[in-house]
């Protein structure tokens, strides 16, 4: 029993991380129908910015957190402005290839700025792990889960309650119709990029104390986040949440009851299975698009 609980906690921690990354994928897809394969690299940049601000410069936690996210969002905006918007024929496949290229570029930048070594920062708070029926829940895991829930609720409020959020959603449903009623679509796309990369950066910031941050950490995290987004249903926030937790917990149980060698395979097998039986993901929008 104690073991199962520990696997569960381990899975929830990892799952929450995947969920935050998946939200970034999902919300960008929602607004632009674009999959940003450089998303994992924004997570990496977020973690490494946090290493600099919190670890090296010893700024207060909140300041470091906000500074990191602002830096990443700015990078995301520049990326959209310089690499995505100038594309003459913005077909999905062209844009996807651009994002793959950008991911290689960003990884190189990360390596030049932070070097090839891994870095670490202390936990947000120095509480000892919580002991629940013999299983340990880390304080940073609690932080991650709280921040994940806050992000989802915040986004939900933004979409449903604010004019900008509603405009973004309208733009996502039909660019042309939104344009007719006077919504500046370019502005909305840029905002979506900024928000999505900011959430990616946030994911990096919260996992920096859990794991070691290095320039090459982004690719695998990005893929796992993408898996989680697809699992839950691309475009749906609650789907991203569900997909992330499902993936994390199944991975942990897979390690516990099958073999640790199959940990990464679990994620991708699950993805194949879901794409086969329910191409749109568990919580899918009415029609699913396949690339």
């Amino acid at each position, binding site marked *: 029993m104690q*073991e199962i609980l*520990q*696997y569960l*906690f*381990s*899975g929830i*921690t*990892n799952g929450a*991380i995947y969920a935050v990354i998946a939200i970034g994928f999902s919300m960008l897809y929602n607004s632009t129908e674009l999959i940003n394969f450089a998303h994992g690299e924004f997570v990496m940049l977020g973690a490494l910015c946090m290493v600099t601000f919190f670890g090296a410069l010893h700024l207060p936690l909140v300041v470091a957190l906000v500074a990191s996210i602002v830096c990443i969002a700015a990078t995301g905006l520049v990326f959209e402005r310089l690499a995505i918007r100038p594309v003459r024929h913005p077909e999905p496949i062209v844009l996807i290839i651009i994002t793959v290229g950008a991911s290689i570029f960003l990884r190189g930048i990360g390596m030049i700025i932070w070097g*090839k*070594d*891994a*870095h*670490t920062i*202390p936990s947000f708070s120095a509480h000892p*792990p919580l002991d629940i029926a013999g299983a*340990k829940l*880390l304080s940073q895991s609690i932080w991650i889960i709280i921040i994940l829930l806050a992000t989802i609720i915040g986004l939900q409020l933004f979409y449903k309650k604010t004019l900008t959020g509603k405009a973004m959603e309208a733009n996502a449903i039909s660019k042309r119709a939104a344009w007719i009623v006077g919504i500046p679509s370019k502005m909305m796309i840029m905002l979506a990029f900024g928000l999505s990369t900011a959430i990616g950066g946030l994911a990096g910031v919260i*996992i920096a104390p*859990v*794991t*070691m941050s*290095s320039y*090459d*950490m982004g*690719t*695998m*995290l990005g893929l796992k986040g993408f898996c989680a987004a697809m699992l839950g249903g691309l475009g749906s926030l609650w789907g991203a949440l569900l997909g992330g937790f499902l993936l994390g917990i199944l*991975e*942990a149980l897979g*390690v*516990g009851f099958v073999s*640790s*060698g199959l*940990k*990464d395979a679990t994620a991708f097998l699950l993805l194949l299975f879901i794409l086969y039986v329910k191409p749109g993901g568990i919580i899918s929008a009415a029609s699913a698009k396949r690339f």
Partner: protein
Amino acid sequence: MLFSKKHRIITLVPAVAILLCLFMALPALAKSEKKPYKIGGIFAVTGPASFLGDPEKKSMEMAVDQINAAGGIDGHMLEAVIYDTEGDPSKGVMSVNKLINRDQVIAIIGPSTTPVTLAVMPIVQRAQIPFISCAAGNKIVQPINPWVFKTAQSDIQAVATIYRNLQSRNMKKIAIVSVENAFGESGREQLLAQAKDFGLAITKAETYGAKDTDMTAQLTKIRQDDPDAIVCWGTNPGPAVLAKNIQQLGLDIPLYQSHGVASPKFIELAGTAAEGIMLPTGKILVADLIADTDPQKQVLDSYISDYEKQFNTGVSGFGGYAYDGMKILAAALNGSDGNKAKIREAIENTKNHVGISGVFTFSPTDHNGLSPDAFVMVRIKDGKWELVE
């Protein structure tokens, strides 16, 4: 006949004169300056393995400078021709071909990594050139390739060192966790193979991905069997994550790491979780802690001070592989007259060569030449290394 007899004699005279001059000059030339011995070096000077290749290149250059300053070998100066493989097997193959065909070197030192070494081995064997690799993999010298030697310690000795320590602490049950890459696989193979010889039972053999962020699931699984110790095989940052997870889960099980994390970086990454961890390492990391009676003490001290003086940076644990290779080669070059077969034989007959990575004794059946003494066990205490007897 176009030329008369008289004409022929006239042309012959200067020709003979020139020939005579040459014959007289040749011994004089040879006496004053013998042809230098060209030694090839291929290292991953840039790229992901540059932490190996860069100090190796510097160490080889330093060894060559030292030998030349002492008058060379049998009057021959040494000339190092060094190429960068970037850790890429195909670039390694190109460099070796260039060294053999264009530069016509008489021996090659390097490369830095096992995959590159394995890729170039068939070429050096075909060309019959003495070759001393700086990479760690067992496959380089198992099975024995007559022309291939290596100076880096391998997993065999590292595992034996850990297991001897476990045995002395009377431990019986261990769990192993290894990273899913070539380094982890090779270590895992040795850990499984040698356990029986030391009376150890392996309760669980888990793995983790090189980029995993959390290993509490593996640890939870390991905990069920209540092992006496956990042995982790990986390079940064995975082992530091594992150490942190052990601390967070509050597991009271001694943790052993491999020589793959024997650097101050590991202590920095693992922080307080590093306390009490034991690992095998080459003596260079703890040169200042080693007793003066140790045969390697003097070699280590002079290498470290020379390196720091010449390059103005801290010494790395890896440059010694190339330094040892160059010194062993230099000893073998003595009296060889540049004959490759003789050099090869002399390397194979090297006995008790005191180097940076250990005391080398090669034989036709052992082309690594090191014993488990090449490693010492260290414990991390208060963020510093401490020798374990």
